[in-house]
């Protein structure tokens, strides 16, 4: 695994990316290989169609949202640093080294991971998961197997449970609170990226 800095030179801003995301050089190389694999036309950047080539992703109920997370509304292309930055959310959380408050929250901390998941729910980016957004997610996950009524009831109940300030939508803090018993650090980490 030649992870010397010479092979890292393939990757623009390799060192900076490493520092920013916490990936090791070996990981960055692996991700770069994958990036180049997905980038079939060797354009140097990815487009949504490249993601749609991944068969399993199209079968995935939230596949569309995931692709959407990589491509924010303004951008049509995805370069390698952005690719890595998003995947950095899924790095396993390390030990809590004391960091000063001034540094931004690392992407792979619990809050960082939850923020990423929250963004996938909150498509209109207003900072809240409204009932409709929740319904859309449920519809995507449960498909045609359930009736509209059931979806409505589930969504209604979910909001009732989580909504503490009774504004009819789930804010990020309420989202965090409803998941406090779930081991997010474990659940939202991929070992490959260790």
């Amino acid at each position, binding site marked *: 695994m030649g992870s010397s800095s010479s092979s890292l030179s393939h990757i623009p801003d390799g060192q900076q990316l490493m520092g920013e995301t916490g990936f090791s050089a070996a990981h960055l190389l692996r*991700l770069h290989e*994958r990036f180049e*694999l*997905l980038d079939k036309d060797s354009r140097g950047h990815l487009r949504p169609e490249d*993601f749609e080539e*991944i068969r*399993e*992703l199209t079968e*995935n*109920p*939230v*596949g569309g949202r*995931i692709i959407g997370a990589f491509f924010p509304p303004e951008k049509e292309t995805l370069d390698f640093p952005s690719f890595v930055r998003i*995947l950095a959310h*899924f790095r*396993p959380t390390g030990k809590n080294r004391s960091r000063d408050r001034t540094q931004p929250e690392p992407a792979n901390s619990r809050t960082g991971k939850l923020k990423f*998941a929250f963004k*996938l*729910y909150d498509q209109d980016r207003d900072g809240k998961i409204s009932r409709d957004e*929740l319904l859309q*997610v*449920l519809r995507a*996950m*449960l*498909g045609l*197997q*359930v*009736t*509209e*009524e*059931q979806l*409505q*009831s*589930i969504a209604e*109940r*979910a909001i*009732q*449970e*989580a909504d503490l300030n*009774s504004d009819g939508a789930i804010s990020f803090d309420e*989202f965090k609170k*409803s*998941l406090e*018993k*779930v*081991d997010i*650090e*474990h*659940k*939202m*980490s*991929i*070992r*490959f*990226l*260790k």
Partner: protein
Amino acid sequence: MAGLGSGTSPRLAGFVSLSLLVFVAVISASPDNVDGANETLRRPSGDSLEDSHHHPRNSTEHRKAFPVLAFNYEHVSKPFVISLWILLALLMKLGFHLIPRVSHVVPESCLLIFVGLLVGGVIKAMNQTPPVLDTKLFFLYLLPPIILDAGYFLPIRAFTENMGTILVFAVVGTLWNAFFIGGMMFAVCQIEAAQVGHVDLLSCLLFGSIISAVDPVAVLAVFEEIHINELLHILVFGESLLNDAVTVVLYHLFEEFAHEGTVTVGDALLGVVSFFVVSVGGIMVGVIFGILGAFTSRFTSHSRVIEPLFVFLYSYMAYLSAEVFHLSGIMSLIACGVIMRPYVEANISHKSYTTIKYFLKMWSSVSETLIFIFLGVSTVEGPHNWNWIFVIFTLILCLLSRVLGVVGLTFIINKFRIIKLTKKDQFIVAYGGLRGAIAFSLGFLLTDTEKKDMFLTAIITVIFFTVFVQGMTIRPLVELLAVKKKKESKASINEEIHTQFLDHLLTGIEDICGHYGHHHWKDKLNRFNKTYVKKWLIAGDRSTEPQLISFYNKMEMKEAMMLVESGSAAKLPSLASTASLQNAQQRAPPKQRAIPSISKTREQEIRKMLRANLQKTRQRLRSYSRHDLFSDPFEDNMSEIRFRKQRVQMERRVGRHTLIFKMETAVLLSLQSSEHKVYTYDESESPRDGAAPETSPDSVSLLSESSQRPGQSSRMKKRGDAEQGARAPDNQEEQQKLSRCFSDPGPKEEEEGEG
């Protein structure tokens, strides 16, 4: 035994039960010796009817008066004794909880062993032979219920997430323990002073393999009381279950060769192969029986009563079949329970599910109690061969090897884990390595009497040490080290939704990274399960029900039942409790507490009507369908409750006390309409004029909101008859679904063909 916590009566009860236990123990012991005498006594007497049946010639010999009362104990002695033992063991268990101080400090298992010791001592003092923990009894009757209970309710998610760690601990850890203890004991035996030079290496290894295994019964007994966090619990417990395969292989291997005297490389290799055969074979046997059980449960919709039996019998058969081939019975049982459960639960009725749950808990509780008591009795019985050096060294080596094993393995495992095991975790895992009755029974099975006694003594000492010392001190240690406890969490629909969402998300990310990880395979398994397996093993259209829906339904049903129970349990509190809830929420001044101007008689009338209608609807139970649950409130009791609940919750926020009446009005409205009557309640029965006009639009809007199923005619019931006609064809199939859900085998629902 009606002691309600007062000082003297628990002690009295305890004393009484103890003396009864001793009494029965004596009785049980005596027939073994006195049977011979009874035989001779029986022939000449010919008094009882039984004897006249067995010895017909006696009745002709001399004519006696017809015996009005006779005493024939031998006829029922065996079941009588067994029942008495079980009964008194359970009474002891009851008794412990009446003595509050003791049950906090000492775990139940210790108390039971102690009782067993006492009983054994008493029996011995009377020179009788106490019943011993027979190996066959233990392995065939006492152990399976406990394992099945554990396996059926195994938390699958936690188990599979930590499977790697558990396997490493179970296999490598047990091997390490066995060889370390065996080898070091052999070294110890070489010490001249011990006078145990006759124990050869293979016997030592055999001994090591017996004593190295962590015992699931002891672990369950102790860990259940300390409520430790799920990760640690599943690690220790999973290890204790999976190490059975290793134990079986090692035991048989060394036992064979202890006779031979030498082990060749070929034999060692065969041993390794045997390990794989034993474990994988055991699992496969379990899977086969699990699938059979699931398949059978698909067809039980007409015989609900025997459903639980299928679960129990298939599992037991899995265990016994595995034991036939010397495969790992425990792993077979676990695999059977795990495989069977999701499909069986989708097929069986709610009552059967409850039955299975409680029977399993009951049997495992009885088994556990009996095991510990018998352990105590067998200890007293002996035979013992106490050898100071052997025993002390065994104890020290057990602890040492456990600690070394856990620390060493954790060091390696942590390189592969996402969530590392901390030192505290390691300590608990090491400390939780309790030995128990399995070790004892395996030791009992040994045939070589010379070393057997010595081994047994050492085994019993280790068991006692782990159960008493470690069992008693683990709770304060857990407190001291501030180990994370089990979080009591209510089932939350949010958690379920988000967890599933995250599953999909992670699968997607793994696909993007091109990494075939944990989530990828889980997703593949789920897909396979959904497309093929569920179709075969789950009856009806539940086979296509997504997991989220089942979860949601279960939750709703649970809450509905709770609300029904709390609501109909008492007359007034249903009103007062919601009132007090509101008050607690709002801290409203007392002026709102007064029940507004409604006469007592009026209230009674309302309540009577309400109850009568609720009862009727419950009995009718027609046209219930899981899919209609949320869209057809007029036919569905549960939906009523849900509405009540929702209204109550909403009103907590708004804080209007009066809404209780609105709520009940709404309920009654819908109930009445379900009987296809015209609205009459509104005008005549409303408690206050002010409330009435508000009530109807509210309730109407509420009810119509959720009944917007386009395909079905569930509009507001002013057009009751039209509804009735439309619903009739649905009834037949819905009744089927209904009967499955509520499991009332009664014919009532078919007869009430109102709609």
